[in-house]
């Protein structure tokens, strides 16, 4: 896999945000759905080309933290910054790639192919009519090839194995050439060999493409064994602790 920090990407980074800003900065983040706090005093900083893992059991608050990072839930102002921009004001997410949990991808019950998926997610590169054309399919083909998925390009997503589905989702996230990748339990429900292959792919993306990423997972042992993590935290009852 070749390094591909394109000029556009750098331009975007410089235009939208200061390149010296941390990729993610979380300051005194707290959150409650109703009254009981789900997250308390969360602090961490992720710098460029770094990796960060957040381990935690079900119900520990890691999914809530993920939803806050992605701006899906509203956080208090000045608590989460992505590329120097307050997440509450962030409208343009092209510098962020997101790989959802397997239970999200399991919701895909209609016959969409990986090729269609990757062609259709290039919304920002489409004109007034948001329908993929030849050039979008060409980009999709190239990306599928890069992730060794071209042979499965026309196979319905629902017929792919869990490992191939997750690889498709990471290819989809990488297609926009983001600087940050956020991965939510990407290996849950995937068989052992595919888990290892997937985590190995993260090493490659970080080392060769210079991607920063946040990996939220409950599979601490496997990640520690397979992935070069720069920072690791464990989340327990909404409190983040150094590992």
């Amino acid at each position, binding site marked *: 896999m070749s390094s591909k920090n394109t000029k556009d990407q750098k331009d975007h980074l410089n235009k939208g945000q200061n390149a010296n800003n941390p990729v993610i900065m979380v300051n005194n983040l707290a959150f409650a759905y109703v009254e009981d706090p789900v997250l308390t005093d969360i602090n961490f900083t992720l710098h460029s080309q770094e990796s960060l893992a957040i381990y935690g059991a079900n119900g520990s608050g890691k999914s809530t933290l993920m939803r806050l990072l992605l701006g899906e839930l509203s956080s208090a102002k000045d608590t989460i910054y992505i590329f120097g921009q307050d997440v509450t004001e962030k409208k343009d997410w092209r510098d962020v790639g997101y790989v959802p949990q397997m239970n999200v991808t399991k919701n895909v019950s209609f016959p969409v*192919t990986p090729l269609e998926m990757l062609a259709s997610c290039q919304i920002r590169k489409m004109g007034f009519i948001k329908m993929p054309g030849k050039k979008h399919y060409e980009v999709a083909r190239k990306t599928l090839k890069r992730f060794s998925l071209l042979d499965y390009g026309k196979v319905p997503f629902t017929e792919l194995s869990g490992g191939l589905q997750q690889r498709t989702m990471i290819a989809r996230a990488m297609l926009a050439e983001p600087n940050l990748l956020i991965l939510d339990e990407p290996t849950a429900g995937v068989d052992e060999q595919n888990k290892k292959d997937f985590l190995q792919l993260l090493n490659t993306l970080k080392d060769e493409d210079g991607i920063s990423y946040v990996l939220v997972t409950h599979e601490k042992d496997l990640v520690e064994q397979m992935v070069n993590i720069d920072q690791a935290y464990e989340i327990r009852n909404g409190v983040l602790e150094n590992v």
Partner: protein
Amino acid sequence: MFEFAFMQRTLIVGLFLGMSIPLIGIIMVNRRTSMMGDALSHTSLAGVALGLILGINPSLGAAAICIVSAFLIETLRERFPQYGDMATAVIMSIGLGAASILSDFTPGGNSLESYLFGSIAAASPSDVIVSAVLFLFVLMASIFFYSGLLNISIDPNLARIDGVHVRTINSIFTLLTAITVALSAKTVGILLVSSLLVIPVACSLFVARSYKQMYIMSVALGLGFMMIGLTMSWYMEIKPGGAIILLATTGLIISALYARFRKIKHKNNRMAEI
């Protein structure tokens, strides 16, 4: 059949609705909100009754009630996602309750009953124009938002990050769904319109191997079921809604059998390769 003006109108309305309904159905099925069609069609009965009582076009009454109900369902679903389909069931119950009370005050029971199962002679000249305009809007929205709709169906959060205006697209399709359901009630029938939203899409889910194929197949099947069903209704003197739905159900069984045979054939081919 073609020599009668009312039948020409019915066939033209059927042509437009036969394509509009599956285009809306695809979105509903993929977003897993199929029950919304059922709820809207049932609440539209209250609008029809209200229209008959007030002496205005019942389809207009149905459309107004459907639009309000659709946005109420979407708002409740968004605000209380943990309760799943409960908002749909609540709005449907309110709509049916209101319809049952209003039905006591409608002038003559026959008009209201014709909306339950559809009527082959119901299409007016204005229905032809309205269904043509509706089809144009649904088709344009389906093409303009093709990628956005696909991404929302995968995951709305993922779609938002990719730059899709999720809220705008959802609002446009909620409005189009409500109007399509309200207009279809007259020809297809309130009790059966949700089946026509779902069955052509369900057939294509069994057979199609890509999203594009699913789109084309759903529209072709919706159109086929509608036109053949209306023709059967004329020649066999049966209610159009019933004819259309029974035909669609037959199509669904054939599609399911085809998918089953294809799976067995695929399995045998793989065994032979090994």
